[in-house]
């Protein structure tokens, strides 16, 4: 399971302030905490706090100084993504994200190829978020084809079926599960399949439970990546346990500890 740590995002007040004041303290703190918790990628997002691509470069540089972890450059703006990629020091990175819209694919797919980056594609188009399984699969296939044609192999592609809050769109969770399974048939080996996990728990009282339970169910259908709170120990323990049940990891009595040790060294 590929964990993409969500915490360095200007949607959080401490990160927004850090970007505004160019104070690396909070960014460094969260980079270290998420890396130590076992995050495979650290997502960095300047959000609505900034319109300046240079802020993305700054964020990437601060994270790179703190930890050796791979970076997910997260922006809807192409110029901010490019500024982030240009600041990458040669480590692995992920573009987060494109959609199935042709004008985005035309720019971001070649950018991923050129920068040796992976690419995350949201299964949505100009009509917005899909409301059924079919739209999700059509959009994912569109992104998949654009990637393959440009020479981006499936192991560098992440497809996201668009997870929605269960409190407001309860019927969509099961559609996402079905879509995940269909995404696995796109190629062999399949592309990575990722969700923005915290979305499902938006405004939910039993947030942690909903997130963990969904994650485990989705892993059983083929999900192998998530943008999530990597510092949530109950969540990572659930991931470690699901990997055991799916026979992806060799059992050991201290398997949760082993899961958290997998980074570093």
């Amino acid at each position, binding site marked *: 399971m590929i964990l993409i740590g969500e915490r360095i995002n200007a949607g959080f007040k401490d990160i927004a302030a850090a970007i505004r004041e160019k104070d690396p303290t909070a960014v460094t703190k969260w980079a270290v905490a998420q890396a130590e918790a076992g995050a495979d990628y650290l997502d960095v997002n300047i959000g609505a706090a900034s319109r300046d691509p240079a802020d993305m470069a700054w964020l990437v540089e601060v994270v790179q100084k703190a930890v050796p972890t791979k970076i997910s450059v997260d922006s809807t703006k192409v110029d901010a993504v490019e500024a982030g990629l240009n600041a990458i020091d040669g480590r692995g990175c992920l573009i987060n994200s494109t959609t199935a819209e042709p004008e985005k694919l035309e720019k971001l797919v070649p950018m991923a190829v050129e920068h040796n980056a992976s690419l995350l594609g949201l299964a949505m188009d100009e009509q917005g978020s899909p409301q059924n399984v079919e739209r999700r699969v059509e959009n994912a296939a569109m992104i998949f084809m654009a990637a393959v044609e440009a020479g981006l192999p499936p192991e560098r592609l992440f497809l996201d079926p668009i997870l929605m809050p269960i409190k407001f769109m309860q019927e969509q969770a099961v559609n996402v599960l079905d879509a995940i399974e269909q995404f696995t048939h796109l190629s062999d080996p399949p592309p990575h399949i990722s969700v923005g996990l915290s979305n499902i728990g938006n405004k939910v009282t039993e947030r942690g439970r909903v997130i963990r339970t969904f994650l485990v169910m989705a892993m059983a259908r083929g999900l192998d990546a998530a943008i999530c709170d990597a510092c949530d120990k109950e969540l990572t323990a659930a991931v470690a346990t699901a990997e055991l049940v799916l026979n992806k*990891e*060799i059992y*050991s009595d*201290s398997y949760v500890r*082993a899961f958290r*040790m*997998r980074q570093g*060294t």
Partner: protein
Amino acid sequence: MTVEIPDVTKSWPHAISAVTIGATADEGGTRTSTITVGGETTLPFYHFEGDMPHTPAIAMEIWDIEPDDWPDPIREPFAGVSGSPGIWAKACVDEFGTQAICLRLKGCDPNGANRSPEEAAAAAKAVIEAVGVPLIVWGCGNADKDNEVFPVVAEALSGENCLLGTITEDNYKTLTALGTAYGHKLIAESPVDINMAKQINILALDVGFPPENLLIYPSTGALGYGIEYVYSIMERLRIAGLKGDKVVAMPMLCDIGIEVWGAKEARAPESEVPGWGDVLQRGPMWEASTAIVYLLAGADLLIMRHPEAVRMTREMLGRLMGGSE
């Protein structure tokens, strides 16, 4: 008609760690040679797919006492030297060209000679002074006694970067502390059980022992005595390591001689088993065959006894590594 042969090579995301045993004068020891094992980026001998940067190594086994229960075929090559560790080790190096010595402290066994930690350290020092190759020291197997013996032995060998073993779930704390304090590598043992193989590594790493200083010993069975179980465990450990499970991405060791020479097929004289052929040939061949199977399973370091078995294994190893036939 042309037949397309599909390219089945794959690239693995992670490498097995490389472990060096022995320290030269420049490195704070007194060894004139060292061995490095591991470092693979592919399955054993898949030279078409990835790298196998270090040829698996063979260490010859000696004891701190006269090995009374060894059968004739392996007593004979060491006649006159066994029982004296320094002289025995020197014969292994001078006559048989061994790359490393494994000193088994059988004499410390409380159910046997019950020798003291100081006597064990003296035996180890005798070997270190007699030869320049790296040294492996294997305890008597009694966890309590090994915990008394190793503090003295590890200190006596300080700086020599020896390989000490074994650690198990019951006794890893003492040995990991000694390995760190005196600069030695360790063998992590588990009883033909992949889950326990992983667990002992987690325990050692969790107390801060560096992963690049560990070798996996998943137990060894002689040909005909469970070899296929160990083989499948080693294969699975290696695949998991190459796939990125860092907790098991270590070189593996097989203790060949002690298992083979306990087996009837290697020991029994032809008079007892008519039709099995001359035991002087059969024994070493049983040991070499066992060794080669384990090399194919992914073994990086073999502990062996019979000089002829070592010679045959080395020859096969040369071919497997791409040398001329």
